[in-house]
């Protein structure tokens, strides 16, 4: 189960690195969150109080939900303004 989480984390990292689309990068971040959650639950079973890890996992999910809401709002605005979702096109500050 831990190995699955490691592989999913690596795939999420790959999605964030490779994709040319902001929404997909967001999905990659969510995949990494999922992998971390699995690890949290598996390691939490080692402790006497299992409720700790479970609440921690739920809190991670809630923060992820808040992050996605804000992220999508920003992405919609970016698409309106730049007519593109490619992060390479949004490098105005760099130039």
């Amino acid at each position: 189960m831990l190995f699955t989480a490691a592989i999913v984390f690596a795939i999420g990292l790959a999605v964030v690195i490779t994709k040319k689309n902001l929404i997909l990068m967001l999905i990659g971040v969510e995949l990494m969150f999922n992998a971390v959650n699995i690890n949290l639950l598996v390691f939490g079973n080692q402790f006497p109080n299992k409720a700790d890890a479970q609440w921690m996992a739920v809190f991670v999910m809630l923060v992820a939900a808040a992050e996605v809401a804000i992220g999508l709002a920003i992405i919609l605005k970016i698409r309106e303004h730049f007519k593109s979702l490619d992060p390479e096109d949004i490098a105005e500050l760099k130039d």
Partner: protein
Amino acid sequence: MEILLKNIETIAICIFAALTVSGALYVLFAKQIFYAAIGFLISLLGVAALMVFTDSEFVVASQIVIYVGGILVLLLFGIVLGNNPKAKDGSLEIENREFWMSACIVLVVSFLLVFLLSQIKMKEQTVQLAPTVKQLGLSLVSSYSIALELLGFLLLLALVAATFIAKKDD
């Protein structure tokens, strides 16, 4: 009987792990953003199924409600709202950039993680009852009350901020 149950559990874990990994891989290789979201859905359900085996039914329920019911629907709305299907400009198409570099990074990261994880020595599982939902609720309002309040505040803030950012400016 005990051994049979153990075997069935191992096989089920393997199946769900394969489901999770293949869904994530589909996200990586999908050519269209909508299909990538479907792959993400499969991966999320696989993760929920894996969480069942860690004695945390409450987390499984929240995973399905929050991720599948909330985040995925939000992402699909973002995909559908933001793309004009009549404009055949290929904005729904996606391509991978610098694929080989990232493949190398992924292989290195996953080998490193798997190696580190294989070094861990787990304690023997003590026979221990998983916390019931009642115990979880009691600990939520006793030891986690500050975290609960802060999270409620954070979610309210996210709600207001998302509405504010996404509104049409005049």
